C-alpha cells in the first residue's frame, strides 16, 4: 500500500493541472464564442489575426 503515498499526490497533481488549464482557457476568453470558434476552424481562408 506504500504506492498510495506516490499515486495519490500524483493523481491530485494531475487534477490540479487540469484545473489550471481550465482556469487559463477561462481567462483567455475561450468560452465567449463557442459557436463562432467551431465555425472558424472550418473556414477555408487563413485567419491571420487569431484572437488573443
Amino acid at each position, binding site marked *: *500500500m506504500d504506492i*498510495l503515498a506516490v499515486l*495519490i499526490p500524483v*493523481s*491530485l497533481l494531475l*487534477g*490540479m493541472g*487540469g*484545473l489550471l488549464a*481550465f*482556469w487559463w482557457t*477561462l481567462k483567455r476568453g475561450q*468560452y*465567449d*464564442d*463557442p*459557436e*463562432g470558434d467551431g*465555425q*472558424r476552424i*472550418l*473556414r477555408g*481562408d487563413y485567419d491571420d*489575426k487569431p*484572437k488573443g
Partner: protein
Amino acid sequence: MSDTFEAPSISACPACIATPSAVERAQAAAAARPARIMLSVPDAHCAACISTVEGDLEAMPGINSARLNLTLRRVSVDAEAGVTAAQVIAKLATLGYPAYELDPGQLSMTETDKQGRDLLMRLGVAGFSMMNIMLLSVAVWSGATDATRDLFHLISAVIALPTVAFSGQPFFRRAWAGVKAGRLDMDFPISLAIILATGMSLFETLNGGHHAYFDAAVMLTFFLLAGRYLDFRTRAVARSAAQELAALEVPRAIRLLDGVEDNVSVADLKPGDLVLVRPGGRIPVDGVVVEGQSELDRSLLTGETLPVFAGPDLMVTAGAVNLTGPLTVRVTAAGKDTSLHRMADLVAVAENARNKYTSLADKAARMYSPVVHIVSFSAFGVWMWLTGGDVRFALNISAATLIITCPCALGLAVPAVVTAASGRLFRAGLLIKDGSALERLAEVDTVVFDKTGTLTMGTPEPQNLGALSAEDLGVAAALAQASSHPLALSLAQAARALGAIPALLEDIAEVPGHGVQAIWQGQRVRLGRANWVGAEALSVTASYLAVGPRAPRAIEFSDRLRPGAAEAVAAFQAQGKRVMLISGDVPGAVSEMAARLGITDWQAEALPQDKSAAIEALQAQGHRVLMVGDGLNDTVALTAAHVSISPASALDAARVASDIVLLGASLAPLPEAQRVSVKAVQRIRENFAISFGYNIVAVPIALVGLASPLIAALAMSVSSITVALNALRLK
C-alpha cells in the same frame, strides 16, 4: 444617462461650442481616442458570414480590426477616431446584414461577462473536486477499511472543504438574503444540505466513521451550479439583446425664444413655449400648430397609414412624425402631462397585473422547500426517539435525507429545457426577453395582430401605376423625386423599377402639406393631396396627379404585406387558435386586410385603450392572448396581453413592452415558436415528474437508514443526467 447622449447635439447648438463644458471637453477627449464599436448583427449565422463581415469591415479605412462573435451575434470593431457606428452599420447593410448599435452601457455588459466567468470558474472547481473525490470514494465503496478508509476520507475532506466554501457561495449568499427577507426558497434547503452533509462527514471522518458524504456534497454543488450557469447564460443573452434594443432616441426639442432657436431637453419645456419641428422630426410635445403647413404621419400612434394634413390651429400629439414642412407648435402639455406619458402610465398599470404570473419553477420550489424540511426534521425526531437519543445517528439520517431529496434534477429541470428551447427559437429568429415568456406562450389560445407595421411592412406601395400613360408616369416620377414624403419616395422607386423615364420639369416646388408642383411643357403639373390637386378624394390611401387642365388621376397606394404574415395566420388558425385583427386604421383598410388574410374577427379605429380593453375582456373570459404589435398605440395592449411579440423594426417602447422580439422580417416563425414552447413546457413537466419519481424511490431508503454514500451519488447523478437528456430531446 442624458450626459452621454448629448454629443450629437453639439453641432446644433453653436453657443455650446463657444463655451465647452467639462462634460463636453471630456467627450471630445474620448472621441479623439480609437473607439471600440459594438454592433448587434442578428442575421450572422455561418462560417461564411465570419469571413464576409470581418474581411469587408477590415478593408474599410480607419478600421483596425473586427471580430464577429457568432454565439452572441455581435461584432466588435476596433476603429480609429472619426469612424462612427453609423458608417459601420451602413457598410454592413450593403453586405446584407442589418445591424443595430449596442447601448453604450459597456460597463453593465462587462459586468455580465464577469458574472458568467465567475460562475464558470466555480463550476470548474466543483467539477475538479468531484472527480478527485469520486476516485477516492470508489476505493471506499469497493471495500477499503480501517486506516485506508480514514485516510481516503481525510483527503476527500481536504479537497471538499475549500471547494464547498468557494463553489457553494452563490447558494449560501442567496439563501442568506432569503432568510433576511423572511422567505425560504430553493437555496435554503440546498445550502442546508451542503453544509450539513459536509459538517457531518467531517465529524465522521475525524471519529473514524463508516460513511462520509463529501462526494455527494460536492456533486450536489456541481450539478446545481450547472443549472445556475445555464439559467444565467439564457438570461445574459436575453439581457444583452434587450440592451441593444434599448431606446437610443434623445428626447430633445428646438425651442424658439424671440426667434432664436435653442436646443433644449424636452423636460425643460413649459406650456406656452414655442417649439420648431423640422420635416422628418418627431413632435416632442402635445400642442397646437401656430405656423407652417405640413403633413403628419401618425401611424405609430394610431395605426392610420394615411398621413394627415397639418396647418395652424390643429391639435397635435407627441410622437407623430412631421413629414413635409417645418411646423411651429405652441406647447400645451409637456413631459409628464403629454398623451405619450399617459400611455406610459397605462403600461405601468398593465405591467403590475402581469407580474402576478408564477412560473412552473417557482411553483415547484414553493411546494418543495417546506416538504423537504418537514421530512428531514421528522426523520431526525423519529430516529432520536427510536434510538433513544443517538444524536449522531439521527443527524446522519437527517443529512442523508436532505442530500437525497436535494433538487439536483429540480435545479436542472427548467434551465436545461429553457436553454434548449431558447437556442432553437434564437436560430428561428426569435429572442426571448423574459424567462417565463416561454411558459406563457405555451398557454396561448387567442392571437391578436396589429395591422400597420406588424402584418404589413408599414411602407405603402403604388398599386395602379400600370393604368397611367407613359407620359403621366414620367411626370409623376419626376415630381415624386422632388419630395421626401413617404408616398412620393415609394412612387419614385416603383416608377424607377418600371423603367419610367422622369420627364424634364421646370420650377419644381414642394408646397408643404399639399404636394409638389412644377411646369412641364408649359403646363402646370401637380402631385399631392386630393383637394389641392382638385380631385375627388378616394377612401383608400392615394396620391393625385394633375397634368394641365386634364382631369386628375389617382395613384392608389396599399401597404405591402409582411412576408410570412399569411402563413402565420393560416398556421395559427390550423392549430385551432382564434386569430383577431385590431387596428387603429380606418374600417376600409382593416376589412380589406382581414379579408386578404382570411381573418373574420376584426376591429378598426381602435384607440390604444380600446386595444388593451379588448384584450383584457378576452382574458377575463379565460382566454390567453398573444399580442403581436409594433406601434406606440400597441404598447398598452402588448403589456396587458398574456404574452407579446414585436418585430425588431418596432418602436423602442413596443419592443421594451413585449416579451419576445422577432429579429427577422418574416412572421412565419411565430406558429413554430408557439409549438416549440408547448413542447418545452411538456418537457419541463416531464422533468419534474422524473425527479419526483427518483425521490419517491430514494427517500424511503434514506428514511429507514439504508442510504449509503454510494446510493446518494447514484440517485443524484442518474436523475440529473436523465433530466438533461430529456431536455435535449426538444425538437
